[in-house]
């Protein structure tokens, strides 16, 4: 009996390994295809030009948050030179470049592997990569192809799209791989820190604190990264609540993505106990895909019902905090 149980555990681990190999392989294929589309067939997904901002549509350059905050000299420079720091070296070596993201992601993956094992660490990496990369890409493409019509509020508030990334060498659909990797390691580090500082807290509370740590760091990071000196990504005008010049839905997204992913990932061992690692891996990915759709629906409802309700309660048409950002 013991021999049979050992064999079962061994075969389950083998299947778990096979799953991670296949999942990494598929992810690589999507990255290669997306990178080819982005750089060599930009017309397919209407990729905005980084050299000529006058060609931007949904949003046009004039319909972005950054345009409102720019000086006349900055606007002229942008029209003449395009996005700053767009060479290969800054894209790779910047603090949010591919190489930096890969380095930090590797460090956190090694840590995760030591504490939770290869399979759990791989599931965190693959799961968070797909979860956030897909969510970001859907939001970007919805904005680009429908001008964010899905986000238009009940009062038919005008939107000009959502946002898009300007820099990246490797891409996952329309999200830079560096961003997906950053989501992975930031989520992992924040959830780990919450676990370390509050070891006796419930899973929900720890996941919430992990999400809040990440959101708190982003409150400084986002205004810097979207400034005219960097322009890592560009926000379209239209969100009725803006915090530090950034659409508030960004911060809502940061919190929910990390909070929810931490919960799903910590369920994983229980799923594996019930159905084995192989089936648990598929169930995990399925839950992630369903969660992506759920999150999209939530964000649409959030922007159409909750925000509109909040603003009408306060008797305002929009809230920009602080003014002038």
């Amino acid at each position, binding site marked *: 009996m013991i021999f049979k149980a050992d064999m079962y555990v061994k075969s389950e681990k083998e299947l778990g390994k096979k799953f991670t190999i296949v999942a990494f392989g598929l992810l690589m294929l999507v990255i290669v295809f997306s990178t080819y589309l982005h750089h060599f067939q930009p017309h397919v997904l209407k990729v905005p030009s980084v050299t000529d901002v006058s060609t931007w549509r949904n949003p046009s350059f004039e319909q972005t948050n950054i345009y409102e905050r720019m000086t006349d000299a900055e606007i002229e420079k942008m029209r003449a030179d395009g996005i700053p720091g767009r060479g290969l070296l800054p894209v790779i070596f910047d*603090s949010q470049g591919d190489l930096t993201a890969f380095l*930090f992601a590797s460090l956190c993956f090694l840590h995760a592997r030591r*504490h939770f*094992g290869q399979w759990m660490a791989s599931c965190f990496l693959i799961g968070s990569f797909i979860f956030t990369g897909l969510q970001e890409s859907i939001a970007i493409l919805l904005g680009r192809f429908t001008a964010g019509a899905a986000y238009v509020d009940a009062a038919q508030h005008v939107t000009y799209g959502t946002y898009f990334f300007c820099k990246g060498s490797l891409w996952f659909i329309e999200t830079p791989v560096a961003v997906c990797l950053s989501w992975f390691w930031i989520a992992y580090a924040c959830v780990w820190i919450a676990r370390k500082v509050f070891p006796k807290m419930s899973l929900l509370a720890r996941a919430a604190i992990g999400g809040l*740590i990440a959101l708190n*760091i982003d409150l400084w990071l986002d205004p810097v990264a979207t400034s005219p*000196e960097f322009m890592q990504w560009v926000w379209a005008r239209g969100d009725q609540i803006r915090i530090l010049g950034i659409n508030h839905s960004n911060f809502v997204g940061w919190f929910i993505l990390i909070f929810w992913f931490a919960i799903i990932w910590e369920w994983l061992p229980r799923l594996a106990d019930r159905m084995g690692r192989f089936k648990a891996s598929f169930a995990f990915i399925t839950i992630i895909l369903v969660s992506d759709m759920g999150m999209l629906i939530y964000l649409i409802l959030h922007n159409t019902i909750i925000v509109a309700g909040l603003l009408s309660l306060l008797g305002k048409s929009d809230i920009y905090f602080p003014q002038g950002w």
Partner: protein
Amino acid sequence: MWSKIWKNRVEFYPYASIYLFWFLGSFVSSLRVQNRPGIVALGLITIPSILLITIATIKTYRKLPGELRHSGVCDADDVG
């Protein structure tokens, strides 16, 4: 102290990543931003997170000798 940290460096990877990212991506980068008065001072908003990361780093360091070598935190069968 440093040799103890170096021997157990993997334990500090998440904290080191976040500190470095915060320092380079936010602090150093904010120094380059012009025409945004207060963007460097905006960093004060991240004090709660930096505090929590520091507490986690200290807790990890303090638990190094006993917990990490003998507690079985790591499931050896799973690793690799």
